[in-house]
């Protein structure tokens, strides 16, 4: 476990004995996460690795407050996440967490600019300010000239760059990326990883990626390896 115990600053993510059961109490019960504990310091770039079904994505959904752990304690920036109401969790996700998905998952009826601005609008940012932020981020990911394009008019690499811009529009504490290069060729995959590393370095945002790519994992500050829902190694 990488620990921030010796660091003066409190960890941005503090997971203690996290357990997640699917279909709990039924014959189909699955222990997806089994007593997982770790700390991540602010500004870290971490990878969660492991074989398919090891619990990587489930752990990511817990870290992103999309799901609540069955047991254990999760603190993000010192806030106890699992005790929040549905509304508070939605606000927390919008304000503190940015998501990047494997399949890009942009809203197909919105342009690139509208997609990037959407989390800001959900967070209550005025429309003009949201669009201004979105335009700036699209410029940063090199897509200023594609801002009025719909997702269907963009390549996979471009869509993922839009998704990264979207994840950053509310200046979150953490960006969680679930296999962000899984559907890209190696050239685009490298571009995406470089972007994530750049934003991690420039903005100090903590980045946690789930990846199968050993090369990408090797470039991370921390690597958490899962097997059958347990942490088997941390480096």
């Amino acid at each position, binding site marked *: 476990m990488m620990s921030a115990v010796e660091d003066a600053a409190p960890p941005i993510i503090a997971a203690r004995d996290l357990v997640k059961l699917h279909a709990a109490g039924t014959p189909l019960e699955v222990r997806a996460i089994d007593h997982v504990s770790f700390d991540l310091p602010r500004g870290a770039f971490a990878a969660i690795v492991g074989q398919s079904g090891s619990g990587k994505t489930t752990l990511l959904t817990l870290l992103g407050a999309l799901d609540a752990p069955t047991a254990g304690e999760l603190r993000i920036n010192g806030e106890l996440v699992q005790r929040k109401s*549905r509304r508070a969790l*939605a606000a927390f*996700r*919008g304000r503190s967490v940015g998501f990047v998905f494997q399949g890009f998952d942009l809203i197909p009826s919105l342009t690139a600019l509208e997609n990037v601005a*959407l*989390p800001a609008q*959900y967070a209550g940012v005025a429309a003009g300010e949201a669009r201004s932020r979105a335009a700036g981020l699209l410029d940063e990911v090199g897509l200023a000239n594609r801002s009025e394009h719909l997702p269907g008019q963009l390549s996979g690499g471009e869509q993922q760059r839009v998704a990264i811009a979207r*994840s950053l529009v509310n200046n979150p504490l953490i960006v969680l990326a679930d296999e962000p290069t899984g559907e890209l060729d190696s050239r685009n995959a490298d571009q995406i990883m470089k972007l994530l590393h750049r934003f991690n370095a420039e903005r100090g945002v903590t980045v946690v990626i789930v990846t199968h790519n050993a090369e990408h994992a090797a470039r991370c500050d921390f690597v958490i390896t899962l097997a059958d829902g347990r942490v088997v190694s941390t480096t």
Partner: protein
Amino acid sequence: MLIPILRNLARQPARSALTILGIAIGVLALVVVGALSTQLSRIVSRSQQVQDAVLAFVQQSAAARLQNHRKQIQSQLLRIDGVRAVIPEVVVPYDYGPGERDRFGPPRLIFGLPSAAMQNIRAVLVIGSGTDRIGNQERAVVVGSDFAHSQSLAIGDVVSLYGSSYRIAGVYQQSFTIFDSAAIIRLADAQRILLQAVPLSMAAHFKPGDLATNFALLLRPNADGSLVAGRVNLIEGLRARDPKSVSAGLAATTRVFDSIVYGAALIALVIGSLSIVNTMTTAVRERTREIGIRKAIGASDEAILAEFIVESACVGAIGGLIGIAAGLALCALLNAHAQAQGSLQLFDLTPGLAVGAFVFSVVLGAVSGLAPAWTAARLNPTVALRRL
């Protein structure tokens, strides 16, 4: 917000078009029957004013007419308490020529009125061109606006009534009463027309001036019309309608008519709204992962709820606008057809009715989207994100 909604609707164009069509048909039905009801209410109300002005509520039976007792009846009516004056009238159908029976709307009539009645009628009928003062003009006729329009008649033109030529002396403005499709001539001219219907063997016994089909009663101030009608009905061969019961009957008939036509239109709209429920339910199922994404990036349950309700309301709004536009076109078409036939225009799609129908279609759309939107709002984000 509207453009992304239109883009969403364009993702399934056939389904969206059919859903919008369903609402449009419902709104079309609502505005057309609403326009019909509005116009009928207006016609009833105006006709009531005419009746109040002329008080033409005493009818002679056919048998009584043949007894040639007009003067005796008139003096009997004058003796009734509350009656100030009795004005004889002759009302005959205009023409039952080819096509007349297939004509849409009430029958066209020829009114033979004395000058006194013409004065009373001015309270509700306004002359548009020419004059309605035909007391001294033989074979002169004043016609209603629809009557004139149907035959392209203007002042000075000649129209044939029962084989005789009548010169158009005046054309009334549209009044939305039965007089719009009527021709008004002097009583003496109408009595001559009526005499033509009497068998030749009996005609020699009649003086045209003795004939009348109706009597208009002018009442004294504070006289009770119902009491007068009751007394008239005691006289053999006469039938007087109680003005109050006529009004009540008309009001009741209008209510029943409104209930039926609005009920039918609402059923059409409810069926249309079910198509919105179906469309939105399918949309939620198809866009489950999108809902998960929206929640992951910070959308609250309320935001998702609002997005789907607004989308649903937009479907209602688009359907409503199309339905209202189609209703306007249909009402204009039917009115033009009626006018060409010399009938009353029966559809009046008022701005209030159009706005009401639009608001109703938006609200109906929003309400129809409530259940699917609620399902979307309550989706667990992790479950939604698992959907490919």
